[in-house]
């Protein structure tokens, strides 16, 4: 019954559509002209989006932002071994934890000046800001995951003859995997949200650049297209990781939460 399924799905969008319609109405008939430039109607945003699509520009922005995110993620994945080591060895955790705790609440955008000193301008600096967003959720989730590995699983492995290294590779890593993946999912989300700050300096492309750039000349329609693209791609990324990891680790309860 694909039609019924489709109807069910579209029923979910009723409120969204009502809101879009009233926004269109307000923007056309209620707001005065200067206000409407600041909040163009959905049709105006769609037109802006269409322009960007037609010129192919938006794809370049999406691609560049995604590749920054991806490379930042590659660097940030050192959080996984670090987290495992911190979760396994109390004395390392004890030393590294205070540093992590102080650095973690500092917003990525505040790192811009220092990051320029360290990395200069360009992709690496942009990636560093995204990296900061991705790194901490992965680290904290990995530490947590390792600490929360069911102790009986470790005991079971040990009384089947596994030594410490075997316990880590054969049990800790696998048992912690679902929560590590959750960390990756959250981290990629936070990193994706750091995009606008990341592409503030030295970028000539990317969705964050699109927004920053449109701000200087007040192309609110482009700003909104940029915002929605970030929102939608962020959502898709999240879903993608969720669904694939559920497929790959059907035994995990953590992922269904």
């Amino acid at each position, binding site marked *: 019954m694909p039609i019924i399924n489709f109807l069910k799905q579209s029923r979910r969008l009723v409120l969204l559509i009502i809101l879009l319609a009233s926004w269109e109405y307000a923007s056309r008939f209620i707001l005065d002209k200067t206000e409407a430039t600041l909040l163009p109607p959905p049709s105006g945003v769609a037109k802006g989006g269409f322009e960007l699509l037609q010129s192919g520009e938006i794809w370049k922005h999406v691609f560049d932002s995604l590749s920054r995110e991806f490379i930042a993620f590659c660097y940030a994945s050192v959080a996984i071994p670090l987290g495992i080591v911190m979760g396994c060895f109390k004395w390392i955790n004890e030393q590294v934890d205070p540093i992590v705790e102080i650095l973690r609440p500092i917003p990525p955008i505040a790192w811009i000046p220092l990051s320029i000193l360290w990395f200069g301008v360009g992709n690496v600096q942009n990636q560093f800001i995204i990296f900061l967003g991705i790194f901490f959720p992965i680290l904290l989730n990995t530490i947590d995951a390792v600490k929360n590995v*069911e102790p*009986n*699983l470790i*005991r*079971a*492995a*040990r*009384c*089947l*003859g*596994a030594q410490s290294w*075997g316990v880590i590779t*054969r*049990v800790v890593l*696998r*048992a912690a*995997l679902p929560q590590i993946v959750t960390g990756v999912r959250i981290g990629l989300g936070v990193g994706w949200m750091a995009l606008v700050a990341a592409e503030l300096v030295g970028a000539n492309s990317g969705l964050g650049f699109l927004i920053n750039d449109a701000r200087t000349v007040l192309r609110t329609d482009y700003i909104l297209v940029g915002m929605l693209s970030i929102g939608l791609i962020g959502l898709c990324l999240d879903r993608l990781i969720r669904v694939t990891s559920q497929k790959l*680790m*059907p*035994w*995990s309860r953590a992922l269904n939460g």
Partner: protein
Amino acid sequence: MLALKVEHVRKIYPSMHSKGQEVLAIEDVSMNVNKNEFCSILGHSGCGKTTLLNLIAGFEVPSAGRIECAGKEVKGPGADRSMVFQDYALFPWLTVFDNIAFGLKIKGISSSEINQIVMRFAALVGLSQFTTHYPHQLSGGMRQRVSIARALVVDPTVLLMDEPFAALDAQNRALMQAEMIRILNEESKTVVLVTHSIEEAINLSDVIVVMTRRPGKVKEIIRVPEPRKMVEDTPAYLAIRRQIRDLIAGEHDDSEVR
């Protein structure tokens, strides 16, 4: 021949909270288990049964005393003392086959040999048809069978079991006890079982150790007259059951609030 020797073992746990005080869990426990003997440990909740088992397994270190397995002092966990847990502790990311094969892979045995051994033990516990299933696809009783096969496959000197059937319902529990007897008839093994069920202990054991309340000490060691052959509801059965029940009930209750 002695498979397991526990000599004057004491275990003190450090306090769990910074302000709490130390816990003397067991005190001066001595017991011997012969090769291929089945030994059950009975006692009130919190009397230190799990503590004793963990000491034998090597997960904990005794505060005093000494434990020997097949003549060698226990220094830590090892495949000569494999354990079956109440919550099964199966690796959820491995199939039944790979769970059973776990100990063999660590030993570095060739995969054709692993295949052969695993299939033999899967057949022993009646799971030949389910080797490609994952634990979450099995019922509680089947999971416990996997857990038993996994522990047996490494051919341990002593098999340790901590309330292995407590999570099963009464019917499945009776079934698993019968299975256990069948398995032990095929594969002779030294077993130490912790349980709360007096019937289970009588049905399975050669020897039953009854412990006092905390700090756990050995209150009495009882030999079952006809191990694994006693018929329920016969006078002999009822007599031994009453004896144990009285021993346990004789321990007065001093700590209800946890």
